C-alpha cells in the first residue's frame, strides 16, 4: 500500500489541513504512523486515520459524559467530541492549563479529537519491529494498543483508534444512573 503523497511529507507538527483520505491498513507493508506523547509515553496512530492536528482548541465540557470524554470542540464549524487519551489509557490527568494537542480522527463517520500532550513526527514503520502488545501491560493499555514497535529511541505503542473510541453502551448507561 502506498500512502497518499501529501502524507509522506507531513511535517512533524503539521499545519492545519486535510490529512488525506482514510486508507485500509495492511499489516506487513511499511506504514506511516503519527507519533504522539501521552504522559511521557510514545504512542502512534496510523496516519490514514488522522484527519487533522490542532493545537489549543477551547474544549467545552459535557456534563455527565462518560469518563474519558473531555468535551466538545468546534473544528471549523463541525462539532467534534474530544477524548482524553490519558484517561482512556489509565494515566493520571494532565495538569490544568497544560498544553494539549488534538489529533482528529474519523470513527464511524464521526470526527473525534484525541487529546495528547504533544505530537511528534510521522514515522514509517516496517513490519519487522512490530510485536503484539505484551500481556503484562495494564488492562487499559492492552485494551487500546494494537501493537508495540521496537524503535531505536524506545518503544512505540501503536493505538487502535476504533477501540479507543468504542465507548461501551454500558459505560454510558451507568454514568447516568
Amino acid at each position, binding site marked *: 500500500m502506498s500512502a497518499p503523497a501529501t502524507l509522506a511529507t507531513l511535517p512533524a507538527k503539521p499545519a492545519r489541513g486535510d490529512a488525506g483520505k482514510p486508507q485500509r491498513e495492511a499489516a506487513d507493508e511499511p506504514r506511516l504512523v503519527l507519533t504522539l506523547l501521552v504522559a511521557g509515553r510514545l504512542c502512534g496512530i496510523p496516519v490514514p486515520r488522522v484527519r487533522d492536528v490542532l493545537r489549543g482548541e477551547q474544549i*467545552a465540557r459535557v456534563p455527565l459524559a462518560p469518563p474519558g470524554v473531555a468535551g*466538545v470542540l468546534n473544528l471549523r464549524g463541525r*462539532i467534534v*467530541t474530544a477524548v482524553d487519551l490519558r484517561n482512556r489509557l489509565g494515566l493520571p490527568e494532565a495538569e490544568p492549563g497544560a498544553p494539549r494537542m488534538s489529533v482528529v480522527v474519523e470513527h464511524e463517520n464521526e470526527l473525534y479529537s484525541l487529546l495528547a500532550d504533544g505530537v511528534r513526527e510521522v514515522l514509517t514503520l516496517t513490519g519487522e519491529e512490530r510485536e503484539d502488545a505484551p500481556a503484562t501491560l495494564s488492562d487499559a493499555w492492552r485494551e487500546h494498543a494494537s501493537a508495540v514497535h521496537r524503535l531505536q529511541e524506545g518503544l512505540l505503542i501503536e493505538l487502535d483508534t476504533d477501540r479507543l473510541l468504542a465507548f461501551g453502551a454500558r459505560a454510558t448507561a451507568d454514568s*447516568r444512573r
Partner: protein
Amino acid sequence: MDDLISEFLAETNEALAELDTALVDLERASEDAEILARIFRMVHSVKGTCGFLGLSRLEAVAHAAESLLGLYRDGDIAVSPSGVTAVLAAIDTIRMIMAGIAETGVEPVGDDSALVAQLNAASEEQPAAEAEPVAAIVAPVAAAKPVEKPAEEKAAAQHGDSSMPVQAIRVSLPVLDELMTLASELVLVRNQLLQVARGQTDTPFAAPLQRLSRITSDLQEGVMKTRMQPVSAAWAKLPRLVRDLGTELGKRIDLVQSGGDTELDRQVLELIKDPLTHMVRNSADHGLETPDIRRAAGKVAHGTISLSARQEGGRIVIELADDGRGLNIARIRSRAIERGLATEAAVAAMDDAEAARFIFRPGFSTAAAVTAVSGRGVGMDVVRSNIERIGGTVDLQTVEGQGTTLIIRIPLTLAIISGLVVQAANERFAVPQAAVVELVRVGSGGASVEWLDDAPVMRLRGQLLPLVQLGALLGLAAPHESGSAAQGFVAVLQGDTARFGLFVDGVFDTEEIVVKPVAPILRDLQAFSGNTILGDGGVIMILDPAGLARMAGLGSARKETAAAVTGTVEETGSQLLLFRAGGQATPIAVPLGLIARLEALRSDSIETAGNRPAVQYRGQLMPLLPLGPWTQPPAGSTQHLLVFQDGNRSLGLMVDEILDVIEERLVLRPSTDRAGFLGAAVIAGRAADVLDCSYWLRLGDPHWFGKTEQAAPRVLVVEDSGFFRQLVVPALTSAGYEVAACGEPSEALKLRAGGAMFDAILSDIEMPGMDGFGFIAELRREGIWQKTPVVALTSRISPADKARGLALGFTDYVGKFDSERVLGALARVISTVKEAA
C-alpha cells in the same frame, strides 16, 4: 382559479415538455420499450387527473392517445410515424385546451373528433410483424388532418404556453440541502457579527447589520419552508405494506392513521421512513396475533395498528400502537442474560419498562430467535440508532396481552431552532425556546424559592412548580442548601408530561442555533438533545426538557416498591395535591381534580358567622372548615384554603400548608379507623393520608349533597380497583348522584337479581374474572338492566377496544382518571334515557 386545477396545469405542463422530448426519442428508436412505457405513463396520468377534475374534452383526447400508446407499449402494433404524429397532435391539442383553461378556468369549446378518429385509425394499423417503416406512404395522410383544424388554435396554444403561470418547479434535493447548509452557515456568521457588534456602540455597521440579520432570518425561514413536508409522505406506502403483510401472514389488520398533516423537515422525514416501515412491519408480523389466537384471547379478530403524529414543542411525536400480544418481558429478561447483555442481578433490578428496552440493544437477538421468543426485536437496535442519529428518541410501552406502543420523538427540523442560552455552574447551555413557557427571576425582588425538605419549589399563580436545579442535576455544582434564599432565574419548561421550573444561575440571550446531533458516544445522555456552535464560536450543549424531567424523576410515575405488595396498582398516575393540616406532620393527599381552587387568605379576613368561620369570597359568604383542630391564625398571617365548589355553593377547607402537586401512581391502603380519611398511601416516597372529601364536605355543609329536590339519579360503579372506587364514589356523590359500588361484575349481577334499579352504570373494562366486555354482554342479553346506559371506564382506550365495547352495548367510553369526562358522560347518558322515556 381552483388550486387543484392550477396545480394540475403546472404539473401537466411540465409533463408535456418531457413528453415532447420523449416522443422525439421514440421516433428515433421506436423499439425502445422504456421510452414507450414512460410516454404511456405520462399520458395516462394526464388522462387520470383530468378525468378526476371533470375535464371531459381533455380526457377524451388523452384517452385516445393513451389507447394508441398502450398498443405500442405492449408491442401489439409497431410504432409508425403516422401514429407518432397523431400523438403529437393530440399533445398539441391538450396544450391548447390547457391554455384555454388557464385563461378562463373552463375548457374551451371545440371538436376533437377528427383527431380522435385519427388516433383510433392509427390503433388499427397492421400488426407488429408486418410493421415496416412505410412512413412515406402513411405520413402525408396522417399529417394532413390534424394540422387542418387545430392549426389556427395552435397559435393560441403557443401564446398560452408562455402566459400560463408556473406554480411549481422541481428542484433537486441536493440543491435544497445545499441551500439549507448555506443558510445555516449564514446564520452562524450573522450571530458572530452580532456578537462583535454588541460590544461596540455607535458603529456605522449597526444599521446594515440589522438589515442583514433580518434578511438572514427571512432567508432561513424561507429555505426551511421549502423543506417541510407532511409526515404522511413517509406513511404513503404503509397501507399497502400492511395490506400485503396481512394477506401474507393470514391476519386481518387495520391501519389507522391520524395527524398525517403534521409537517416536518424532509431530511428528517427521509430518515424516519425506513425505521417507520420497519416498525410497522414488526407490529404486523410479530406484535399482532392471528385471528384465531385473538379470538381465543377475547379480542376482536382483526388487529389494529394505529399511527399518529403530532407536534409537541419543538418535536414531532409519532406513535405506533398495536393491540397485539405485547412483549413478553420475562423472556426478554432471560434472553438479555443469555446474551450476556446484563448480569442476572442487574436484570432483576430493572423494572419492566427498563427491561423492555433491551429490544433496542444491539446483539439482543437475531431475527429467527426473537420471532419465536419475544415477538419483537428484529433489528430494533437499527431502528433506534437511526432515530437517535437524528437526535430523536424511541420509547416503548407494552402491556402483555394488550399491545405495544412505540413512541418516537424527533426534532421538527435538524436545522435551526431558537434557543435560550442559560448558565449554570459557569457553563452555558441552550434551552429550546419552544419549550420555554416563561422566565421568572428569583431572589432580589423577584419570586422566591420555597423548600419542601430539600426539594425547591416555586409558587406560580396558585400552582406549585417543582424546580430542577440544573447545575446540581448535571453534577456541576452542589445543590442549593435547603431553605436558602437562592438567586437566579427559573425557566418554566414544558416537558413531555409535566411542567417544571429549571433553576439556573443566569440567562443570556435568545439565539438562533443550528442544531447538530451529538456524537454517538454522548447520545445516551438524556439531558441533551444536541449541541450547537454559538456566535462566539463556543460549543454548547442543547438541553432536552423532557430528558431533564425524566432525570429529575418528574412527570413519569415513580416506581413504588409498595405497589407490588398491595395489588391495587393504578396504571396511570393521577394528579394529587399534597398538603399538611391540623398540625399533623403526615402530609395529606387529595385528587386535584376535586378541588376548584387553592387560596391563601389574610387571616383577618376570616369572620365568624353562626359560630363558624367563614369568609367573603367572590361576593358570597363561604363557610370555612378546619381539618382537625384549628385556632384562628394570628392577624397578618396567611390561611391556606382548598376551595371546593359545586354550582354556586362553595366551601373552604382550611389547611396548614400546601406542599406539592404530584403526578403519582397511587396505591391506597384503605382503612376505616379514621373518619375523614380513606386510608394511607405512599406518595413521592413518603407516607400520606388520603382525604375523604365527601366526609368533609358533608361536615362543612350538611346540605352539600342533598341539594336537589328530586330524587338523585342512582349510579352503579363496577370497578375492581379499590382505590379507584374510593376516588370515584365521592366524586360522583358530590356531583349529586346516589352511588352504589361493586368490586366485580358478579356482585353487580347479584344486585340485578335482587331487582335494584339504576339510572346508569359505570363499568371498568379490565377486571379479573368476568371483564367489562363479558359484563356488558350479559347485561344486554337479558334482565332488567337491558336498557340501562352503561359507560365504560378504562385507563387505556384503543380504537379496537372501543369499537368492540360499543358493539357489545356500552353507551359510551371514557378515560378513567378524567373526572370531568366521567361526570359529563354520565349526565349525557342519563339525560338521553330520560328524554327517550
